[in-house]
């Protein structure tokens, strides 16, 4: 649909240098790049607002400068950053301006077809109720919606946008881009948009054009961005690719340089405070940890400083059942509030064990690895716990704390290593792992948790094997010690 060949141009010098770009009909191309990289100049060259100094732009195979302004406006409409309007036109009047290239005759009255298209654009952008409202009184988001409606009423085949969501709140940004995407999919609209938000661009665009110092690098497949390389090069900063929870689209996090400053190794002596009574067991750390766990409160991946197990007797559990408190999360939320533990900084579980039987094994390993391992024997009846005939009660919970950086893969690997070490220690005590653990969420759950401070450059750098060996050793010893201590209690 639009093709740039060796396109160069700019106001004073060449802001855009020998750009080649071909946009097919119905494509959504996002242009990304740092300030001053020539994005806007490129868009102006492509839309004909600026004449190229070298090279050419072809629109449907014909050079752009051979179109009359009106003919061109039937093919391309443009939406700028924030447009100021003189005089107080109403919303409907502004949208009606979009029909200019289609109007004929000296008087330029709106034909029924014009009215239909204006109506359609108003409906599409949900502006019908504001049609007689003065444009200048609208909020920024509504103004952009009106200008979008104007561009849509223009019925062009391609829509160029220059940072259309620049001053908009994120909800308007998403709303606007959803609308564009709908238009793209339902009418085959071609979209070329300068976007300043990499994540938004990666969510909506089919292809990316990265501008750097006037030169264009194309990202044909959006998946190529799952490797942070191109973006880090483009913006010369650190970006962290992350996984979108619902969509197969690359997304990014930005890391403040601030987080590399505080790199003192945690010392076990004053890293945490332990509170343990007949109601709960609570570890409060000075620094936050990135946690991966199956805790009922804060399961999955989250950041936390408070780690707790709350004790509930079987009677209480039954009472809960009768009262119809269906889920442990709700119970936990209440308990966290009750004991003054901030829920959004906590990972917690309900246990039916008696908390005196909790065993805390801690060991300061050589920097940067710190491990505190807590093993619980969550059962009301310690004697029956050790009977091999009651397999579902053989639950051991492990919480592993590490001062260092692990990526998600290392976290999973750490969990596996810890689980294997735990099983080995249990097997040596003649205990088989429980079956169908956690299938019923109202039953006891064996908690497996790995928590990392994510400080420093990376524990994995010091060598993969020694690290996992240390994890294995620590978990094995802790589980063993915990089981032995339980046995000693039983023997007494």
């Amino acid at each position, binding site marked *: 649909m639009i093709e740039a060949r060796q396109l160069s141009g700019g106001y004073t010098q060449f802001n855009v240098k020998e750009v080649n770009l071909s946009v097919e009909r119905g494509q959504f191309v996002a242009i990304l790049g740092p300030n001053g990289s020539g994005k806007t100049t490129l868009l102006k060259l492509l839309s004909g607002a600026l004449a190229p100094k070298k090279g050419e732009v072809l629109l449907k195979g014909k050079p752009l400068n051979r179109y009359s302004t009106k003919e061109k406006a039937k093919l391309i409409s443009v939406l700028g950053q924030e447009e100021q309007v003189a005089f107080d*036109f109403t919303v409907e009047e502004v949208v009606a*301006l979009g029909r*200019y290239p289609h109007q004929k005759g000296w008087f*330029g009255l709106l034909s029924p077809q014009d009215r239909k298209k204006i109506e359609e654009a108003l409906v599409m952008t949900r502006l019908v109720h504001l049609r007689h409202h003065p444009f200048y009184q609208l909020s920024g988001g509504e103004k952009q919606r009106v200008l979008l409606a104007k561009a849509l009423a223009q019925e062009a085949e391609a829509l160029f946008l220059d940072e259309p969501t620049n001053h908009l709140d994120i909800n308007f940004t998403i709303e606007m881009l959803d609308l564009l995407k709908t238009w793209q999919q339902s009418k085959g609209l071609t979209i070329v948009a300068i976007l300043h938000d990499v994540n938004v661009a990666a969510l909506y665009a089919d292809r990316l054009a990265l501008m750097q110092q006037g030169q264009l690098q194309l990202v044909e497949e959006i998946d190529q961005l799952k490797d942070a390389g191109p973006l880090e090069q483009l913006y010369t900063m650190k970006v962290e690719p992350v996984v979108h929870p619902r969509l197969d689209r690359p997304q990014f996090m930005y890391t403040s340089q601030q987080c590399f400053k505080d790199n003192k190794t945690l010392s076990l002596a004053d890293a945490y405070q332990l509170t343990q009574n007949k109601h709960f067991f609570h570890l409060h750390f000075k620094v936050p940890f990135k946690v991966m766990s199956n805790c009922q409160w804060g399961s999955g991946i989250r950041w936390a400083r408070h780690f707790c197990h709350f004790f509930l007797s079987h009677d209480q559990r039954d009472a809960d059942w009768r009262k119809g408190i269906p889920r442990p999360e709700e119970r936990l939320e209440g308990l966290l509030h009750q004991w003054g533990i901030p829920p959004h900084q906590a990972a917690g579980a309900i246990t039916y064990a008696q908390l005196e039987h909790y065993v805390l094994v801690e060991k300061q390993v050589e920097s940067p690895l710190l491990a505190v391992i807590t093993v619980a024997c969550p059962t009301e009846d310690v004697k029956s716990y050790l009977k091999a005939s009651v397999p579902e009660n053989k639950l051991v919970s492990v919480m592993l704390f590490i001062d260092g950086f692990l990526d998600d893969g290392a976290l999973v690997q750490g969990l596996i290593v810890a689980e294997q070490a735990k099983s080995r220690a249990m097997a040596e005590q003649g205990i088989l792992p429980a079956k169908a653990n956690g299938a019923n969420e109202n039953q006891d759950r064996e908690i497996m948790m790995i928590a990392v401070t994510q400080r420093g450059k990376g524990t994995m750098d010091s060598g993969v094997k020694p690290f996992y060996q240390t994890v294995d050793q620590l978990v094995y010893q802790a589980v063993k010690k915990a089981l032995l201590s339980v046995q000693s209690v039983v023997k007494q």
Partner: protein
Amino acid sequence: MHPISTKREISGKVWIYVLALGLVVAIGLLALLVSSVQVPVADILFILLHKLSGGQISINVPNNLVTIIWEIRLPRVLLALGVGAGLAVSGAAFQGLLRNPLADPYTLGVSSGAALGAVLVIFFKISLVSFMTLPFFAIAGGLSALVLVFGLTRLSRRGTSIETLVLAGIIVSAFIGSLISLLIALSGEELRGILYWLFGSLSMRGWRYLALYLPFFVVGTVVLFLHHRELNALAFGEEAAYHLGVDVKRKRGLILIGASLVSGAAVAVSGTIGFVGLIIPHVVRLLVGPDHKHVLPLSMLLGGSFLAVADMTARTIIAPQELPVGVITALVGAPVFAFLLLRANGQRGKSS
């Protein structure tokens, strides 16, 4: 669709046109009536009928009254209506083109440029094509002043923002004003003629001036009317208008020429009369909104009425002496201008 609301809007606008036309006729007749020499309404109507029918309807009115009404008052009233209409419509066009609600022929230096052109003709007694010389120079002067103002704003690198444009207009006007003062200082017997233009007056013009003004007025306003949609499209700026399909360079040139033709010709026949082109389009926009399809014709009707009333006041308020009509329009216009300026600033404050 909302046929009801559309219908209601149209009928509302029709009423405004009917009222505005009625106002023009009423004020026209009133202006014929009110003067130092009282002529009965019935006689005025008879004289008009007599003249318009080409003398077929005979009347019983003294000949000197016929002369007063037909040769002095009627051309004066019609010229007031025409000049007012021209100033207002060109003001509306300048405001639309420059997206600047504070632009008008006066603030943009077109009026003073035209005045300089006229003064040059009087001073040097230039005569190229008989009586067309003066309007020709006036229009050329107006256009060159406009080019100068635009050149200044371009050079300032701040673009055509409201402030720079108005500032450039003031600078150019002041410069031209000093040139005119120089010519006045150097002039001898031409002094009265020159001052005549500067005050802005409609007295002692007669049919010849009306005939001189009319062609420019008609051509200019037709050009402007044909560009009402372009003027609307320019509301979002030249680049946005270009993307809507407006051939900005060409249309801008045509609108500027059209507006300068009308305002230059107005200055040529009546001298510099300020504020009509500034405030009338504003009042019209308050009534019918900013659509130039209505702003242009209604500005003409209201502008004509306003100037006719102002002229009527100018010649009656200290009768038998006469005030320059520019004094009246400025006395009314300046406070309104100030009010609009404050209101515009208030609006901008709200929206940002």
